[in-house]
């Protein structure tokens, strides 16, 4: 047992790799969400530190195109994390009943991974085997259509503002930032 130096990206990448591995292997979905959520906190900040926009910024922009309102990054980030249950899976507040309602645990787990992966790919690309495995799984998964919004129109660069763009991951058939 010895002390070693790790980059923040290493900390995040290893957790995301574990989340992807557990997900593909059909293992515990709560652990998948917890690991992907923790990785994403680090990755989101690293993307910003690199001078680029992170996945939350993408959501804010898409939402602003649709509604004309640009919400603060912190507010949107918390809303997404609450939707993906990331906070509920690591806290028990005084007086709460401990019950967590989850409409689709599988979808939450995949969305948590995709959100973190969107940020990871910005920083490190798609060259690692475990990243390729996830994107291969996405292509092969016959159930992926259930995540598609039939009204989804992927915005093009420099395009006019469009409507009906989903604001939550996973965004239809186009995984973010691929």
């Amino acid at each position, binding site marked *: *047992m*010895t*002390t*070693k*130096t*790790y*980059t*923040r990206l*290493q*900390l995040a990448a*290893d*957790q995301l*790799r*574990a*989340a992807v591995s*557990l997900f593909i292997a059909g*293992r*515990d979905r*709560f*652990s998948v969400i*917890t*690991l992907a959520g*923790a990785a994403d*906190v*680090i990755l989101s*900040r*690293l993307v*910003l*530190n690199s001078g680029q926009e992170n996945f939350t910024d993408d959501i804010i922009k898409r939402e602003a195109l649709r509604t004309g309102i640009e919400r603060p990054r912190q507010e949107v980030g918390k809303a997404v994390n609450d939707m993906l249950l990331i906070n*509920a*899976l*690591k*806290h*028990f*507040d*005084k007086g*709460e009943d*401990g*019950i*967590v*309602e*989850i*409409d689709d*645990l599988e979808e939450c787990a995949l969305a948590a991974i995709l959100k973190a992966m969107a940020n990871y790919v910005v920083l490190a690309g798609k060259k690692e085997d475990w990243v390729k495995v996830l994107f291969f799984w996405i292509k092969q998964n016959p159930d992926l259509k259930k995540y598609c919004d039939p009204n989804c129109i992927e915005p093009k660069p420099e395009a006019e503002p469009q409507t009906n763009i989903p604001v939550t991951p996973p965004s239809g058939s186009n995984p973010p930032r691929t």
Partner: protein
Amino acid sequence: MPTFHKSDIARSQLETAVDIFLKGLSYHSVITLAGAASGILDGLLLAASKEPFIDYARRVHAELQGQMPGRVKTAHYIEQRFGISAHKHLHETDTETVELDLERQAANALTKAIGDYIELNGQEEPFVKAFLQWSWVTMDGQALMKKYAEVPPKMRPKTE
């Protein structure tokens, strides 16, 4: 809509953490999963009027140092010592790298979480037994118990 109780969620996280730990697959992930499970178990213990690890640590500190540290401060200190904070937080001003003794910190994070889990649910489940067995063998359980026999009653867990 399907519902889950957080006690079951913590169990799932902990079971996964022990499995990953014993296989040596990702100590980073063990730290995060044990930390998340601890966050739930701590609240469950308080709700059950039992003593979580954090409060036991505060009580021991008070016996040794003469003053009781704050609960939030102690919780943050423990999360930093076990590497939990570094695996789930990053601020704009943080350093680009972090020094970690991964395996030791993963074992410590798991020990804390398993301790709280046992306080609530006992130690009969296979993943709990597996980790206790690992601890007994690798940390010289017999020598530890000899030392523990000398610990004064005021510094022992309240369950005794």
